[in-house]
């Protein structure tokens, strides 16, 4: 019979906790999803000999007294695990032993059963510190294990230790009512233990100082950051074009094959035009998301992201944000949902709220499919100056528009939201390290999985609903059309287009038409606006469904179909003015149900998501209106 043991993983931020978690659990991990769950709970499983382990990775903490939302979550969880006498695996950054051990002693006094993992011993040795773990174990009365999670060393030994029951040992032994004086007491005791259990040797010069000279240079620093951003987006655009094409071709071939082999039946149509069209619309964006998180994970894992916060803090403060807002805002480039959740690390309520309110204006990856589709229709794929691809430049431009409006919105909200709370920026600057490729791989996998599963579910569901809405309509009208078609009054291609126009979806689009006409949109785009309220990328799937329903042959790509589209006068529908107006609309409108849900959960009020919905859609309407009226 297998035993099940629960392990709670805790430590300071940047102590290598997450890579230890990855080494322990491998691919057996799951993340609590955003909808419904208040705690972002990362857990994983592994087995050693005949014990099964469940590991819970808590957010990083410096002390038992929480200062921000996610620290509150971690402290609460620790309290519970102490009650259930689970093992607490405390990860120590050996290069900063004294500070790392403070929280450890506080947890010991919470009556937790603690096992300490000594991490980053290599950095400690570079700093001239040699640690004697046996002496530490003896002095603290709990086990200390050497590990190096970057190189997966000591993992087997750690697993063996985890199988054994850990001791519960008090550190101070009495509770001091004054928090700060109890911290000083702890440090005093930690210091005396450390002087007996560590040896100081010569310090090696570190690269960090050299890199920081450039990364935080008054001019070069910003130049480097900007260059990294541009390089990132150019690479995402060009690198992902190949796998994207393979996926498109693959789905095209599959649809073609199935439409030739399956019987002509209602279910076949549902499968091909509903499910498969929707699936293709999701999978096609996996390459972009993977590349994006590849870069973001490298920036975070190497320690560079902290420097970005540092050089931008003053600037961010002028618009009411915090240097730490850079991380959610950058994260917003991938997806506003995890980004908004990452704003929990900002302890100041007003700065956090502002960050949450403006983050969805950053160009998230869900906009990429819409942008790519529209840009490829209205902008020629030409290279200017020998280097810059016009389409890539247009894409970069949209990212910058997003950033500018984010700043403006923040400035405005900063004027209206009141606070009397103290804003803090005290934080550790970690040393630079080579990114841990395994961690980056895990991050990419996790994000892609979340996108495929969470967004995917919505997209496929909406694709099916949409297929239904666009294939069916009021019976009398449909019967009348059928009769006219059978009597030879209308041709086959005309028949499918008339069917769509008279379907339920067509009716919805037409109802919207008077409102969106000043923006240059027709009723087909109206349908897409409605469906993509669930998620922006649904726009592309909707277009695919609309056009594949209209055209029985699925061989040509959606882009070509849209480019060929003409209005009653024979003029092209997707002109530059219309395309540009659409791009602006998708840049600003709050077309994402999941974001609204997350903002509600994070702010615990419907007021903020409502304000967000109104202000974002308002900006979108205004910008699209001006752009279309000027350009047409």
């Amino acid at each position, binding site marked *: 019979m297998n035993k099940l043991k629960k392990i709670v993983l805790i430590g300071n931020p940047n102590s290598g906790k997450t890579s230890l978690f990855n080494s322990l659990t491998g691919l057996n991990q799951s993340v609590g999803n955003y909808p419904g769950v208040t705690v972002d709970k990362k857990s994983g499983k592994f087995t050693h000999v005949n014990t099964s382990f469940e590991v819970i990775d808590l957010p990083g903490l410096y002390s038992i007294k929480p200062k921000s939302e996610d620290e509150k979550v971690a402290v609460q969880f620790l309290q519970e695990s102490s009650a259930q006498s689970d093992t607490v695996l405390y990860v120590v950054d050996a*290069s900063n032993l004294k500070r790392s051990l403070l929280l450890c002693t506080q947890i010991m006094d919470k009556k937790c059963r603690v096992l300490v993992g000594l991490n980053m011993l290599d950095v400690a040795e570079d700093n001239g510190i040699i640690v004697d773990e046996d002496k530490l174990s003896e002095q603290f009365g709990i086990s200390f294990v050497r590990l190096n999670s970057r190189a997966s060393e000591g993992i087997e030994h750690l697993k063996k230790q985890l199988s054994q029951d850990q001791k519960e040992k008090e550190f101070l032994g009495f509770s001091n009512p004054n928090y700060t004086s109890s*911290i000083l007491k702890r440090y005093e005791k930690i210091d005396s233990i450390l002087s007996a259990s560590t040896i100081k040797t010569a310090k090696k010069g570190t690269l960090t100082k050299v890199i*920081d000279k450039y990364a935080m240079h008054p001019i070069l620093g910003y130049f480097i950051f900007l260059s990294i951003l541009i390089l990132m987006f150019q690479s995402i655009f060009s690198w992902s074009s190949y796998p994207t094409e393979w996926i498109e071709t693959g789905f095209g071939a599959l649809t073609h094959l199935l439409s030739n082999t399956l019987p002509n039946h209602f279910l076949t149509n549902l499968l091909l035009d509903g499910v498969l069209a929707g699936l293709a619309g999701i999978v096609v964006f996996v390459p972009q998301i993977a590349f994006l998180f590849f870069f973001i994970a490298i920036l975070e894992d190497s320690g560079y992201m902290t420097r970005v916060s540092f050089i931008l*803090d003053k600037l961010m403060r002028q618009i009411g944000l915090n240097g730490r807002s850079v991380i959610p805002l950058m994260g917003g480039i991938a997806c506003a949902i995890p980004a908004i959740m990452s704003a929990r690390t900002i302890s100041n309520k007003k700065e956090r709220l502002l960050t949450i309110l403006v983050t969805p204006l950053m160009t998230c990856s869900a906009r990429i499919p819409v942008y790519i589709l529209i840009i490829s229709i209205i902008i020629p794929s030409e290279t200017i100056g020998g280097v810059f691809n016009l389409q890539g430049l247009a894409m970069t431009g949209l990212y910058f528009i997003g950033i500018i409006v984010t700043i403006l919105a923040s400035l405005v909200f900063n004027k209206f939201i009141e606070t009397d709370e103290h804003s*803090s*920026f005290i934080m550790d600057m970690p040393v630079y390290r080579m990114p841990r490729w395994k961690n980056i791989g895990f991050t990419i996998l996790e994000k892609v999985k979340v996108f495929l599963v969470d967004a995917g579910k919505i997209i496929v569901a909406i694709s099916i609903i949409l297929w239904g809405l666009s294939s069916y309509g009021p019976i009398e009208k449909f019967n009348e059309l059928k009769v006219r078609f059978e009597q030879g009054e209308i041709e086959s291609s005309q028949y499918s287009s008339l069917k769509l126009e008279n379907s339920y979806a067509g009716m919805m689009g037409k109802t919207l038409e008077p409102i969106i006409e000043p923006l240059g949109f027709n009723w087909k785009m109206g349908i897409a606006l409605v469906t993509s309220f669930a998620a922006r990328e649904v726009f592309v799937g909707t277009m695919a469904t609309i056009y594949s329903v209209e055209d029985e042959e699925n061989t040509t790509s959606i882009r070509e179909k849209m480019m060929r589209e003409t209005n009653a006068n024979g003029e092209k529908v997707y002109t530059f003015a219309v395309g540009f107006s659409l791009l602006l609309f998708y840049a600003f409108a709050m077309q994402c149900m999941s974001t609204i849900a997350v903002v509600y959960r994070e702010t615990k009020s419907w007021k903020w998501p409502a304000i967000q919905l109104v202000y974002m859609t308002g900006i979108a309407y205004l910008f699209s209106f001006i752009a279309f009226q000027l350009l047409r």
Partner: protein
Amino acid sequence: MNSAALTLDLLQKGTKASLQGFEDEVVEEKMLEMGCLPGSILEVERIAPLGDPIIINVSGSNLALRKDEARHIRITVIH
């Protein structure tokens, strides 16, 4: 040996100082948790390009903080 009493925000880059105490409870708690205790020797390692925040080096590790926060930290310069 002359030692001048200052607050941390006024400390020049590259000058060593000894931490004397705190004038703000929030800053105190946070700094203590980060391992910055009265008596610690610290040095301004870097000032952000826009003049704020600053990075101080305390016993080998680097800590970023704003001048607003540094204002509440009393130090004496060591010559």
